């Protein structure tokens, strides 16, 4: 299995027997919610979709895996989503087969997907790699595999010698505790399981990755092994183990 990092996504290409393009957390329809919170912008759906289409054309995958939160509004569909979603999904489907792992924001998305496109919320293994949105306990079938998950929107801040200089979407790769994640029984000899948290494809979603670790809100983030956690930038630049960045926080 090989991975390619698509920095202008952020997206991933995972290639083994098949070639998949992975994107997480597109949050189509976020603008309606922003307006509810006092931020008024026109819909960026078109720009976001075009960005994704360009990456599909460039990477030429066998399938597009959307790791949840394709849409934004919960618990109901908004007007914006009602009008935009069908066309967005149809446009994508025309180019490449869709595989959707619904996330917590995806209530009601079923009506716009065709059978065979929806996978379990708890995740599934495809071509040797586990995929899931990441807001629930993963299916035990994912144990021993690399799990790729969305949901957390990690964003990394780096400082140079004088001050803050970079804020960038980043990946977080970590070992997880199979037992705590209910993927294995205590004492059961199990292959190590790793999770890769993907940054959000949505251009304004972002959450400080140290916060993800300090104040975990999902089963996955609660049960990662922070000693075995490494950070990679959206473009595939290896930043290093989390623990080498921690002293930076408390100098």
């Amino acid at each position: 299995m090989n991975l390619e990092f698509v920095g202008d996504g952020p997206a991933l290409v995972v290639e083994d027997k098949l070639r998949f393009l992975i994107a997480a957390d597109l949050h189509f329809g976020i603008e309606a919610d922003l307006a509810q919170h006092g931020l008024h912008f026109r819909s960026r759906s078109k720009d976001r979709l075009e960005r994704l289409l360009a990456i599909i054309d460039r990477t030429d995958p066998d399938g597009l895996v959307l790791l949840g939160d394709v849409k934004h509004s919960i618990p109901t569909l908004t007007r914006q989503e009602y009008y935009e979603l069908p066309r967005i999904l149809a446009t994508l489907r025309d180019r490449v087969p869709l595989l959707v792992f619904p996330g917590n924001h995806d209530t009601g998305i079923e009506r716009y997907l065709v059978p065979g496109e929806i996978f379990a919320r708890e995740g599934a293994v495809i071509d040797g790699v586990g995929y899931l949105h990441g807001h629930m306990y993963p299916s035990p079938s994912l144990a021993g595999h690399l799990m790729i998950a969305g949901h957390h929107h990690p964003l990394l801040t780096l400082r140079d010698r004088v001050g803050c200089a970079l804020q960038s979407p980043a990946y977080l790769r970590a070992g997880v505790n199979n037992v705590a994640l209910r993927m294995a029984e205590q004492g059961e000899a199990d292959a190590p399981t790793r999770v890769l948290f993907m940054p959000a494809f949505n251009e304004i979603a972002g959450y400080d990755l140290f916060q993800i670790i300090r104040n975990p809100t999902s089963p996955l983030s609660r049960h990662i092994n922070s000693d075995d956690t490494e950070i990679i930038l959206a473009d595939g630049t290896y930043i290093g183990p989390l623990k080498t960045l921690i002293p930076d926080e408390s100098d």
Partner: protein
Amino acid sequence: MKAIEVLDPKVQACIRKRGFTLLSDAQKEAIPLILRGDHTLLIAPTGTGKTESAMFPVFNALLTMPSDGGFKALYITPLRSLNRDILSRMQWWCSELGLTVGVRHGDTPMAERRKQALYPPDLLITTPETVQALFMGKRLRHHLASVRFVIVDEIHELAGSKRGAQLAVALERLHVYAGEFQRIGLSATVGNPQDIARFLCGERPFSLVQVPVAKNLKIDVRYVGDDFRHQTEVLSQMLKREGSTLVFVNTRVTAEALGHALFERGDVEVHHGSLSKEVRIDAEERFKRGEIHTLICTSSMELGIDIGRIDHVIQFGSPREVARLVQRVGRAGHQLNTVSHGTILATGFDDLLESLVIAKKARANELEEVIAEQNAADVLANQVAAIAVEYGEIERQKIVDILCRTSLFREPALLLEDVCRQMEEHRLIRLDGSRIITTARARRYLAGNLSMIHDERKVPVFDMVSRRTVGTLDESFVVGWVHTGVVFITKGQLWRVLEIADGKLTVEPAKKVSGELPSWEGEQIPVPFSVAREAGAIRRSRRITDYTSDPDNVAYAGQFLVEMDKNRSLVPTDRLISLENTDDGVVCNVCAGHKANEALGRVLSVLISARYGTTVGLELDAYRILLRLPFDIRAADVRDLLLSLDPAHMPGIIRLSLKRTALFKWKLVQIAKKFGAVDPDADYEKISIIRLLEFFDNTIVQQEAFRELLTGYMDIEAASAIARQIKTGEMSVGIGPHSLIGAGGLLSSRDQIPPPTADQAILSTLRRRLDQDDVFLCCMNCRDWKSKTVVSRIPDHPQCPKCGARLIAALKPYEEDSFTMVKKSRKTSEERAVEQRLMKNANMVLSSGKKAVIALSGRGVGPENASRILATLTDGDAFYREILKAERNFIQTHRYWT
């Protein structure tokens, strides 16, 4: 009293009844002109009866007008407190003359407002913001049609601001209902009266009445030392004399500190904008009644609020601007033809020289100009929304007509086009061909945006450790810049942000960090270029006696310069920029004032950050720029940059640099609010607002942020002039030891200039990581020595302490076992392969030393990759970039992921 003989006998009788026996020059000159119907700008010192000058002729006209409802005259002042003061003065006149008067502003109760809508007073006293609100109601709009006079009081306070620009548009909106009305502006002394008149009248002809202030000013400057306790003692002594005193300070913090120190005297009160209305009014009243003799105040007392007789004005610290000094001292001797006495207490070397220059300029009547806001796009957006609500829908051309009548918009049609498009983006208006149509949002927007003053929500700063709130920050600052992990300064202390949630900022105290972050604790009054230059000239000529005869002043300043000479320090002047190395970076001593230094500092920072790929911290005041730099960039490097500065490139460089700074993002949020993109109570949690701001790239919002910063916050002209002088040799650049002058001053503005690419942050993170990496050094010669250490501790050419050989393999912790294998005497073929790898490894360390160890520490970098990296023969950043490349390749492979 001849001038009033032209007035209606009823008005004349009133004037006599009120006890006026003498008219001031201002009144004598202005009354006939205003009575004649001229648009008039009256410029005169406070206390010369400006209000009466305007109102006598207005009363005269009002008496002859039919009482058919509607407002007849609007009296607009910048402050509610001034409104109250004017109201109490007008009530007497109006009741005597049988006219009605009312006040309407933010504090006016609902019942009163309703009454005004039903029975509009002849004279309405109001603020620019409430004028905006008058256009929103149908009935009030109807009453506006009968307006014949608009009086704008303290117009100099408004003319240079966006508030003023908004008012100028509002006056032309009023014109649509009322037709031509007479405009009367009342102003303190300014450097450019014609411009102020244009601001009021647009292209209409006007009359100008100017009463000079300078001849009645007597200003002393007195050095009181740099110790606060001593300063307060001197002040306390000065307050012991008879009569009442206003003490002006430049910040609220100083006002509080002085108030606290003088509290025990019992005759002192503090007055500033952060205090509640009740507290302020109580202080004013007690001062007026003579119960207290001293009021310590900020600019809140500059305007003509009547607080009775003031015998003396003390300015604590340099007044920064000539106009400000004149305005403040002008409050003393609040009677006709008396001399105003003022004393500046100077609190340091810069402060003393600056005060002397300002005092001299005040005597010579050389005041600063008030520069109006030209083409302010956010003002226009605000007014387009207001007009859309006012009319429901309107042709664009009608708005262009309104704008054309003001003096503030060049090419309004083009600007309007851009502004409307942006507003539509944020759903504040709809566009339909040439028509602009209001939306449901627009009225709600207006309710929160009547004012162009950035009425900032304050975000509380909560300290996790002491579990208490330690202060507040401007919301726009928090939104545009602060994120988890950053360090900033407030209350003179460093804090690290732990979390931004629930509308508060959770922080912990931070220890010294290499970089300090932006901080704006209230915007400072900038010292003008000309003042700072002249202060620099005194440093050069050392002729302090040209400015003061006070022996203490002369002795202190003389002694200070002698001390500089003794230390072999360079004394920076108007012809010499001196550079000094310090632990934090490089101090550039430039006597150019805040705005020119801001421009120059930013140009230098961006050039350094681009050349060296590092973030540069910038702090400055009127006389010095501190560039916070990594230790390896020194004064000589900064000098080279200064000497090679091309004035023609400076504006472009500044534009480039601004985009990524905190200052710019802060402005962008403020302007976005005026375009309706961001509500006043918006909730920013859980999204990356910094990336949201990228939506404004190449829009009118961004353009306006540039315009405002480039005209209001910095003086590129002056900075370019300095660059030109450096080129021609008029200005020299020298390097000296860290000096008293270089170390002095409280740096008032802070920002950071990040490098054009983020590369450096990644590289320094990589270096730090590799430095910390554990490594096993194993001697491949004797095969008997192994040592665990970290990369940073390894010497340039590691050597085996047992056999002295330099054939050392550098192994990652998980490779430790392979050395054990190598020590075996009988090896399998697999083990022999391992041995070969280790030999390759050790040979690399033998030939390239520590550099090989560093390369070998890279994630997934084995001997093959390492030798490829070393073969590039790169050094420094380029070498580390090669390692990054190798690591990036590695993590795309199967090996990393399984």
